[in-house]
């Protein structure tokens, strides 16, 4: 018995370490390339850092790479978008699980349908619509569509289906709580692990989103970080790969930090604190 446990542990270590290496290597390469000159990168691959990081940084900022500005913009957009997505998706999912109402089936069908619509498909129509509505160069089309995020609603619904104790809601009603406050005080806290999971995915997705902001935003003051990095490619003659890598690394860094903060929820497993009977 003990032996078997030991072997199990050994296999677990082994697989985990391999996956660990696979996960970390690209970050290492990114970091290394951020310290190498464009010519070094163009002429060959290396895992050993070089000494061009300050040069790359100069090129980066010399091109008007307003890192802090871009950072603030990205932070604002991604945070707002994530909050909108999480709050309203939780609300919709809660409605789907807790209430019986007319049109529930229709609503669920709409959610499932929108989930399946290829994103690329909507892009042209979306852009045209925003042009006609005069909403280009504005953050509204980057944040408000979060109101209807079918994947998150779908996930939260599935999550609640597998774990939500409906009896708590009924008990709260007897205590005289309003429906909205039941949602806030019982629904949301119970959804925390699920929301944290979706929160990370949503935030990362929004932070890395390039195409939509690139199509819509034209004023440089409003550029997001990935747009600024992409802008480094806007030199037909010569691409400064060293500074692009540095830019990418600097773009990823905040994400890693945000992720580290969020991931506590997942790792610690704040699982359904309210239902432990």
């Amino acid at each position, binding site marked *: 018995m003990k032996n078997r446990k030991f072997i199990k542990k050994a296999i677990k270590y082994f697989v985990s370490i391999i996956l660990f290496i696979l996960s970390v290597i690209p970050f290492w390469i990114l970091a290394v390339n951020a310290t190498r000159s464009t010519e*070094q990168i163009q002429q060959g691959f290396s895992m050993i850092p070089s000494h061009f990081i300050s040069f790359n940084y100069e090129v980066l900022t010399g091109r008007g790479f307003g890192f802090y500005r871009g950072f603030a913009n990205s932070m604002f957009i991604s945070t707002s978008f994530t909050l909108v997505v999480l709050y309203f998706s939780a609300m919709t999912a809660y409605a789907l699980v807790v209430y019986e109402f007319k049109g529930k089936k229709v609503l669920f069908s709409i959610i499932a349908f929108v989930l399946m619509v290829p994103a690329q498909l909507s892009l042209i129509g979306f852009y045209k619509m925003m042009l006609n509505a005069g909403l280009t160069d504005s953050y509204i089309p980057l944040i408000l569509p979060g109101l209807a995020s079918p994947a998150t609603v779908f996930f939260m619904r599935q999550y609640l289906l597998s774990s939500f104790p409906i009896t708590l809601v009924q008990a709260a009603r007897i205590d005289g709580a309003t429906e909205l406050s039941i949602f806030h005080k019982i629904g949301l806290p119970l959804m925390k692990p699920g929301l944290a999971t979706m929160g990370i995915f949503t935030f990362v997705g929004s932070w890395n989103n390039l195409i939509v902001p690139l199509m819509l935003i034209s004023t440089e003051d409003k550029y997001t970080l990935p747009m600024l990095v992409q802008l480094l490619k*806007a030199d037909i003659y010569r691409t400064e790969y060293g500074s692009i890598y540095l830019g990418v690394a600097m773009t990823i860094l905040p994400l890693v930090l945000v992720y580290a903060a969020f991931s506590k929820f997942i790792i610690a497993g704040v699982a359904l604190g309210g239902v432990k009977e």
Partner: protein
Amino acid sequence: MKRTLSLLLVFVMLFSLVGCGNTATPEPTEKQAETVATEPTANKGDTLVVWTFTDELKGIIENYYEKNNDLDYKIEVVVVPNENYQSKLDPALGSGKAAPDVFAVEAAYAKKYFNSKYTKDLRTIGIEPTEIPVMQYVKDVATTENGELKGLSWQATPGAYFYRRSLAEKYLGVSEPEDVQPLLADFDKFYNAALTIKEKSNGETAIISSLGDFTKVFKADRGEGWIVDNKFTIDPKIEELMEIGKKFTDEGLTNDAEQWSETWFASMSNDEVFGYFLPTWGLHYVLKTNAENANSGDTTAGDWAMVQGPAPYFWGGTWLTMREGTEMEQAAYDLINYLTLNEEFLTTYAKESGDFLANMNVVENVKDTYADEFLAGQNQYAMFAEMAKGIDATTMTGSDLDIDELFDEQLKAYTKGEKNKEDALESFTSSVKDAFPNLDY
């Protein structure tokens, strides 16, 4: 299967007929041109919006245009990287909302915009093509079938073949450009030279790095472009290119690299590759920057020389064009006029940047002042000026970027032995049909 295909073909043809009626007929603006006043209308807004895909134009506007002119409006330059440029530009032009007043287009797709109704004929606002000292091919690119002039450029980008003097001395026995050029003057000679180099170097040195290096030159040598009178056309030169490409690959006359890959750059600083086909900007921004090995510091600078090679060609280039219906017509005109025709500015700019220009008066004035140490003292400017005269841009079409890409894929498949020639050509034609159902076949 064949029947379905032919049915499809009929459909496609029917379809393209319908399509033609709607799209391919250019707007009959020519008559208007003679009656309408030849002056731009006054500005109706307070901001001139310029879209471009490089920071080069942005720099020129900020460092020269805005500094030297007292403008009573703002200029907003929006830089959109090339890969997303057209997808952002097209809907904006179509809707006319949030659209630029002036925008830059690149050679690879310039004609798409010049042939559309969204660009203004510069003749209608006082730029007469016959009276301006701009190189013929630069004007040709921007001229439509009806003779409208839809754009102008400040630069010209003729291409050359850059080779290593020391390797030429070693393997060909001569090193000076005037002695080397005769050995490379057409593709047969180029092939023979490639064989000699390979043999004498024991396969250590290849005449080109990538097959992609000379497809551009070969295509420039064609009699007809991909599309002639709305009909998809494969010039006999294309099959020749496939043959010679296959020969080069099979006999190991290239360095087996992909253009813009690590190996391609790396052999600029070692002896694996004899030379590169590159245009004006390629000399300054590709070759010069990579001639020094970034790790060891070994350099090939000073060992290079340039010749025309087998055929004159050009590569890249940025044109400026004005949106039809802009509210800032005067400002747009002023900008284009200044950047492409103001000789005082252009002279300063040529001297400060070394960029090769399209304005012949300026080129004549400055060309004798250059001697590039990188090329062991050769005057690249004067040579480019000579080469530019031989460029023929008439085979260029607005669809070259896409069709070239589809062709290059099959060229690779064929030269690398994945397919035979017939299959490769068939795949090519079929993919062009899929992308361009509007053409005749």
